[in-house]
């Protein structure tokens, strides 16, 4: 490697445009890239291989091909005096070409023309590659597929068990804290109420309003064919009070707050903050989980109510602007056709959705381990699981309430 650097000592000699730097400083590139060569030469002393050129990682692929082409002949010695440069990759390849000694290791005595430094490099490299090969990566095959399916089934079962265990832990902690108001951590609860409740109001209201409008259009399209356009009001009322209000609010909160819970607790777990809490004598469940759960238990019913109202408002807006149903007619129709029990059917589910979201969000946070990637994986899993569980619970409730004729 040639070195074309010529630094002058005097500062006034420096280039005016680049104060302080030498104008004659030329980038140090390898002078002429001399391709690595490995040739078999037959001399009177026997077969000698000649290694020349730059044996570096840049030419490793070409070098590897040269060696493979020459591998059929076993040279008595290697002449390496023509090497321009040799890095550790080149040394590794040169070692492979060497004849073996009695113990089966490459015989460093059989390479000529190496400087002491390069011999030291060869020894170091020989030492590094000596030993066991790394275990191979697991092959992707049919049994890997079956194993994945099995592992996934087991993890679903395990997840269910963990969720129930966490619920139990939460309830016992709650019962322990409940009689001691001094340990209720109201500041934390209020903070999470703001984060998960108040800050979610605009998005929940807007989304429900839009869905309400969409359902109104759908209803009008279908019902107008039977001359029953007014029943659009019934459709929106039933849909939003019983199902959509709670479902929309819960799904948004699962995406917004459930994921935040996992990420916050997961990051704390990652940085050993959870362990620090425990060593100080604080219960992480009490400090981290209960305030979040309490906040959601309050916030989600309120958000559900807001979603119901916004959905009805969306329907009302569409009714007034394009379906000839005035707001007054809309409200009176709503009052006479939908008894308040439907409102309560929707509201009663909200605390259970809140419990599910907080439970899954916090549990996934505690399951984070080690890497930063783990936080991401568990956050995704938390959102997917809580939305799945919310919809599942809602479907079960729909069937049960229907059978009970509520």
């Amino acid at each position: 490697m040639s070195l074309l650097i010529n630094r002058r000592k005097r500062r006034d000699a420096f280039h005016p445009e680049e104060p302080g730097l030498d104008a004659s400083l030329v980038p140090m590139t390898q002078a002429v890239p001399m391709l690595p060569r490995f040739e078999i030469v037959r001399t009177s002393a026997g077969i000698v291989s000649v290694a020349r050129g730059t044996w570096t990682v840049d030419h490793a692929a070409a070098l590897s091909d040269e060696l493979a082409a020459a591998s059929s002949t076993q040279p008595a010695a290697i002449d390496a005096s023509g090497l321009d440069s040799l890095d550790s990759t080149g040394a590794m390849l040169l070692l492979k070409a060497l004849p073996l000694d009695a113990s089966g290791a490459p015989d460093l005595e059989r390479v000529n023309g190496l400087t002491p430094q390069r011999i030291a490099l060869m020894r170091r490299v020989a030492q590094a590659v000596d030993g066991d090969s790394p275990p191979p990566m697991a092959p992707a095959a049919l049994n890997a597929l079956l194993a994945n399916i099995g592992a996934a089934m087991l993890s679903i079962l395990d997840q269910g068990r963990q969720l129930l265990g966490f619920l139990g832990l939460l309830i016992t902690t709650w019962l322990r804290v409940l009689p001691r108001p001094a340990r209720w951590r109201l500041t934390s609860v209020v903070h999470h109420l703001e984060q998960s409740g108040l800050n979610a109001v605009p998005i929940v209201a807007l989304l429900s309003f839009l869905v309400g409008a969409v359902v109104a259009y759908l209803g009008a399209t279908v019902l107008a064919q039977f001359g029953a356009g007014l029943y659009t009001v019934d459709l929106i009322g039933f849909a939003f009070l019983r199902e959509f209000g709670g479902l929309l609010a819960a799904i948004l909160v699962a995406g917004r707050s459930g994921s935040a819970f996992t990420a916050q607790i997961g990051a704390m777990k990652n940085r050993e903050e959870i362990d620090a809490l425990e060593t100080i004598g604080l219960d992480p469940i009490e400090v981290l989980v209960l305030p979040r759960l309490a906040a959601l238990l309050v916030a989600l019913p309120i958000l559900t109510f807001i979603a119901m109202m916004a959905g009805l408002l969306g329907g009302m807006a569409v009714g007034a602007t394009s379906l000839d149903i005035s707001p007054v007619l809309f409200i009176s129709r709503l009052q006479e056709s939908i008894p308040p029990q439907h409102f309560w059917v929707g509201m009663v589910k909200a605390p259970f959705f809140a419990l599910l979201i907080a439970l899954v969000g916090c549990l996934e946070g505690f399951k984070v381990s080690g890497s930063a990637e783990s936080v991401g994986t568990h956050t995704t899993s938390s959102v997917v699981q809580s939305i799945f569980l919310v919809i599942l619970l809602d479907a079960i409730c729909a069937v049960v309430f229907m059978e009970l004729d509520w």
Partner: protein
Amino acid sequence: MSAQPTCTPAADDSVIQVRGLANRFGTQVVHEGLDLDVRRGEILGVIGGSGTGKSVLMRSIVGLRRPNEGNVRVLGFDPHGSEEDRAAIERRTAVLFQEGALFSSLDVTENVEVALRQHLDLPSQLRGDIARLKIGLSGLPMDAARKLPSELSGGMKKRAGLARALALDPDILFLDEPTAGLDPVGAAQFDELILTLRDALGLTVFLITHDLDTLFTICDRVAVLAERRVLINAPLPEVIALPHPWIREYFHGPRARAAQNAHDAAGTPPA
């Protein structure tokens, strides 16, 4: 010093030149008119109190941070210049970050292979061989080759980071506090490793450290960052002799004396 006879270090054979460097964060001035030369084949220890901008200096040199003023040349290339200059520097320098900065979704072998895949078109067998060589050079056992970074201890993470840094046989190796967080035995082994790799591979090493033992055992020269510039860049005895309050405090405290005594007892004078 250097393993490569074609580049025996001459007196002004510098591979890194920093001239008139200034770095500011808002109103806070970290560097002002900073000059630094790093010679080929040497291990340069960079020390300085907290907030003197050791890491900022390194980031300016490798091109991660554009300095407010001044010029930097690495192997003659400008780290903030043209695309080709930056590519040449990326290809021929490597950084070991403080926590190793291993890609957490890849195992150790894949971590080492990242740079090989990026810069070279190699058959996978050869790429695997090279990765295995670097893992061996960094002193990791082969059963660590398929482990994820989260499954490694702190010292093993640093070694894996070193293996990744060595992937393309760099000319210059930047190490940011390589022995921080290691126990004394692990730290001494890591120092030893850096020294043998420098000798075998002909590396130039830019080493940020707080570890007095590292300074005494492996550094050829020591650059002291203070008063927003390089106070002195010289072999350790000269640095220690400099009458400056921070240096006095640094090298004449009980810990420094202990490190020096241990070093003198071992009978290996600073290179």
